[in-house]
């Protein structure tokens, strides 16, 4: 893996379970020592200066790391203390996080009385309270309901806006697409590809699909003209008045396509554009769907 993450970005590490995302994150947080290679965090080498590297990092683990006998408020207060927050700041941030994550009413409860979703929210709260320079969130919305997901996504974005760099590990493609400025796809312990989501999608030849329904039959001339565009990978007549075009950068070329129909005096009754998803990107680069890749994972 060779990767650099820019300051202030949300970097999505995407891959199926067992791809090596969590192992990578544990090495970055100095919990695991790399068998070979290293990482530089804010100028500090994780091998030679682990304490300094760790001082810049905060992590919300995939599985909540909580003792069942502990109380929520104690867990978060202690975490804030050990991360060096002053008494007033600690009080303010803990209260804020508990209220935002709808845990305020159970703040004095012990961990063993909480649902899986609540425990996960406590884990995420730790990093939100800490506001580290580099915040790592490992599957932050697993086990969390839809409303809670959106709330946590907004909080992660706010954390980035306040100056943190976010590393988001997820196997939820939609989550990565929604949050990440750049995405690295991991498969079998290797980084397969890394780029902005739009560029990853555009990198699939003919990934965009434009469906055009017309008032009258699509002529051969239209097909010929459409195929002459560099961005068009394929144009297929499905029915006499239904054309499917596989292309790239659909948003740029749609006006040109419309111009062809206008020139040929064919009325267009509807146009439907479908962009490739990150599922398609994953499939393109690994040859597997994310579900298939998970089934082949050695960790299963």
């Amino acid at each position, binding site marked *: 893996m060779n990767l650099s993450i820019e300051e202030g970005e949300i970097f999505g590490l995407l891959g199926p379970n067992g791809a090596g995302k969590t192992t990578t994150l*544990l090495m970055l*947080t*100095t*919990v*695991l*020592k790399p068998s070979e290679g290293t990482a530089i965090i804010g100028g500090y080498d994780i091998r030679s200066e682990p*304490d300094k590297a*760790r*001082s810049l*990092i*905060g*992590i919300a*683990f995939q*599985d*909540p*790391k*909580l*003792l*069942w*006998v*502990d*109380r929520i408020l*104690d867990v978060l207060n*202690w975490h804030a*203390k*050990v*991360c*060096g927050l002053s008494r007033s700041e600690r009080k303010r941030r803990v209260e804020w996080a508990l209220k935002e994550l709808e845990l305020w009413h159970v703040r004095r409860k*012990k961990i063993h009385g909480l649902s899986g979703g609540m425990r996960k929210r406590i884990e995420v709260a730790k990093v939100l309270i800490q506001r580290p320079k580099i915040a790592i969130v490992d599957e932050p919305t697993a086990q969390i309901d839809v409303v809670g997901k959106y709330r946590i996504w907004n909080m992660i974005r706010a954390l980035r806006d306040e100056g943190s760099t976010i590393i988001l590990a997820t196997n939820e493609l939609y989550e990565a697409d929604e949050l990440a400025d750049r995405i690295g796809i991991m498969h079998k312990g290797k980084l397969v590809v890394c780029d902005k989501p739009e560029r990853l999608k555009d990198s699939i030849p003919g990934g965009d699909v434009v469906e055009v329904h017309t008032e009258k039959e699509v002529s051969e001339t239209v097909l010929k003209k459409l195929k002459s565009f560099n961005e068009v990978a394929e144009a297929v007549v499905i029915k006499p008045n239904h054309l499917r075009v596989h292309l790239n950068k659909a948003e740029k070329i749609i006006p040109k396509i419309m111009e062809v129909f206008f020139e040929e005096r064919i009325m267009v009754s509807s146009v439907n554009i479908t962009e490739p998803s990150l599922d398609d990107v994953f499939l393109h680069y690994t040859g597997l769907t994310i579900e298939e890749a998970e089934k082949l994972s050695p960790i299963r």
Partner: protein
Amino acid sequence: MRKILLVIERDLKTFLNHKILLLMRALWFIAQILLFGLIASRMVVVPNYFEYYAAGVTIIILYSTAVYIGYDIYEEAEHGIVEYLLSLPVSRKELAIGRSIGGGLRSFIYVAPLMGIVLALLGVSNPLLLLVAFFSLFLFSFGVAGMSMTLAMGIKSADKFDILMGVLDALIVRLSTVMYPQIFIQQTNPFYADIANFNPLTFASDLFRWGAGLEQYITFSPLVSIMAIILFFSTFTFIGVVFYERKLEGGGWE
């Protein structure tokens, strides 16, 4: 230093959260003294055996409470807390020192009121001697915590640790002068007495009895006992800290 104090604070709080466990230990202690101690003292020919036994049981509970840090380490490994602790902005050394101090301190804090009850039963004769004895027991609890950390980190298997601690508890308590004076051990088997003479529980119980004014039953001079406890404390605290610092990373927990 601040980070070490925070690690200690966490250990104390977690320990105090185990309310049922603490209550049961206290009930065990009371039952041992008020049932076993009182009944056994009637059938044992040793004069003042009740006082002798009460002092010994205090050392047993101090030992078994200080050992608890090892079980905590396994519980933390099971719940992933080890990874959490390793990811915090705390150096490995601060973490290891904090755990060692926390493990010893919390057991002493817990046992101190029980010691107070025993001393009230015995009637304290010299507060100064008692303070010296208390301080030695304070170091003893750190030594036991260090020993427990060393074994927990060395074995990294909860089942094996549990079995080992059970066996160790049986041997270390019974091959000491905690429950019976040294002369009876010597009469039973001189080899047992040799082992008991090197047992930290013998030194700890000697010191507690000395501080409580039961000097007729002590095996060694208080100075020897204090030196032995200091040696036990420094050796196992050092090894415990080193083992915890070096072996916490890398997983391998069973």
